[in-house]
């Protein structure tokens, strides 16, 4: 007779009982943990909803007083505090300080100081936990005021956490005063953030708040290589006229990346006068400078549409059309997009290119036409051409239909 079951592999009954008990205990633990997670989720979700409702109540109570800078704002704040709580009112006031500008901003700061919001954040800024300090410092930046500024300057210079220093710099830039901006710039130079996105964000804020300081920083030569390019681009993005001066100085730079940056910046802030410079950059030996020049023409045609006569567009169109056969696909694509923004003559050139035997030029033209704002009759023409091409691209041997597959 052969033995079957656990005994066959040498497991005793005691061991079996032990395993069964273990399985039961583990199952109970998993169930208990699942229950805890579900309860936690329900509680936090309810809390989140309640907080949102409080924020909305405070917003509704305060918004009309904030936009009018009304004398009864203080009373409205008192009512909102009693109905929605201090936390919601603090959040609303801090956010309003971000959305609005003018004399109301200083008034909001005064209220935030008077209601104790700043004092509370100053206390939290001394926490041992990095994330709590970073949150508090960010909040202080949103509050503004002398006390907050002092704490931010100290945090930007001395805090051990890079996240807190970064938050402090943001707050200092929001403050915008000479002393605050200077402290933010010093902290930034001493401790350049690792990620280019963070550096880009700092330059963008600096360009918006204190373009003169940023220009001074660029001219001082403290920013080298990529930093200089990011800084000039930030000034261009903010539409600062000084960006044009800096870009024109660098348009003939030996470094191709700097030339590309200069062309991009010119595209964002140029007037019709600088168009020849951008058109000339289309002949640059480096493909990415040519691509930047084509993109710059697109921006010039789009951003300045309401203010300029676009007398330059005809000349630009001819040059761009030449680049529909550029050796780089990126230049071809950008040239096609730029043509699509250059009015009817550009669209006409694209329609011609869409019939071209050069597949690269043809595809770039069609892709640009597909996204361009076109007249209905031109749109029909483009659609017809796309249909033709779709027909031509049918495979020689059609795919078998399902019935044929299973016949």
């Amino acid at each position, binding site marked *: 007779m052969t033995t079957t079951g656990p005994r066959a592999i040498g497991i005793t009954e005691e061991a079996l009982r032990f395993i069964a008990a273990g399985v039961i205990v583990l199952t109970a633990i998993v169930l208990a943990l699942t229950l805890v997670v579900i309860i936690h989720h329900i509680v936090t979700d309810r809390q989140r909803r309640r907080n949102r409702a409080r924020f909305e109540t405070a917003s509704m109570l305060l918004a009309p007083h904030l936009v009018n800078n009304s004398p009864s704002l203080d009373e409205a704040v008192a009512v909102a505090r009693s109905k929605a709580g201090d936390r919601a009112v603090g959040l*609303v006031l801090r956010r309003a300080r971000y959305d609005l500008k003018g004399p109301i901003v200083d008034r909001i700061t005064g209220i935030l100081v008077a209601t104790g919001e700043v004092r509370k954040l100053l206390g939290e800024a001394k926490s041992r936990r990095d994330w709590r300090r970073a949150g508090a410092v960010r909040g202080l930046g949103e509050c503004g005021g002398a006390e907050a500024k002092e704490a931010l300057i100290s945090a930007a210079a001395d805090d051990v956490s890079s996240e807190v220093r970064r938050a402090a710099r943001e707050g200092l830039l929001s403050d915008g005063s000479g002393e605050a901006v200077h402290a933010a710039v010093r902290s930034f130079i001493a401790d350049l953030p690792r990620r280019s996105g963070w550096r880009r964000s700092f330059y*963008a804020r600096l360009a918006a708040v204190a373009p003169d300081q940023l220009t001074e920083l660029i001219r001082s030569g403290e920013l080298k290589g990529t930093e200089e390019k990011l800084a000039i681009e930030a000034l261009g993005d903010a539409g600062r006229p000084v960006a044009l001066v800096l870009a024109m100085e660098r348009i003939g730079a030996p470094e191709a990346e700097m030339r590309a940056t200069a062309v991009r910046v010119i595209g*964002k802030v140029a007037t019709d006068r600088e168009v020849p410079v951008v058109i000339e950059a289309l002949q640059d030996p480096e493909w990415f400078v040519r691509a930047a020049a084509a993109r710059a023409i697109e921006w010039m045609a789009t951003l300045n549409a309401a203010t300029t006569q676009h007398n330059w567009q005809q000349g630009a169109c001819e040059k761009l059309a030449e680049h529909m056969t550029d050796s780089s696909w990126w230049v071809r694509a950008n040239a096609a997009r730029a043509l699509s923004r250059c009015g009817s003559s550009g669209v006409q050139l694209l329609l011609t290119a869409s019939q071209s035997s050069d597949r690269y030029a043809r595809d770039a033209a069609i892709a640009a036409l597909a996204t361009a704002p076109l007249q209905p009759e031109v749109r029909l023409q483009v659609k017809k051409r796309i249909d033709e091409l779709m027909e031509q691209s049918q495979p020689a041997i059609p795919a078998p239909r399902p019935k044929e597959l299973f016949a």
Partner: protein
Amino acid sequence: MATQIRKKKPVIVAESNFLSARLMMASLQNVGFSVVVARNGDEVVRLIAAYRCELLILNMNFGRPSGLELLRLLKVRQETIPIMVITAVGQAELKAAAGAMGVRAFFDLPFVPEDLCQRVTEIVGAP
């Protein structure tokens, strides 16, 4: 979320932040505009279809869908409502992209309420 809709000059504010929407709404209502607030893409489309709105004020940081995606959607639907786009300072590329979608009016954050009203009046006329 629709509020106080009158027959004259209704304006849609497409803004996902509750307070920002309230601030814009209060500013415009002060000078007599009717305002409806849309907090997501579906609401924008629904409100445009439901009311003869004269202007859509769209924050480019709209959330989901993004301002750009929403502009694309409106273009596909061939909506003819004038659009004023709100951007933060330093969003030149976003402005260019919006410009390429046919937007001609831009407004920067942070804003002074009076400037917002003036800009809207320039586009749609006095309320």
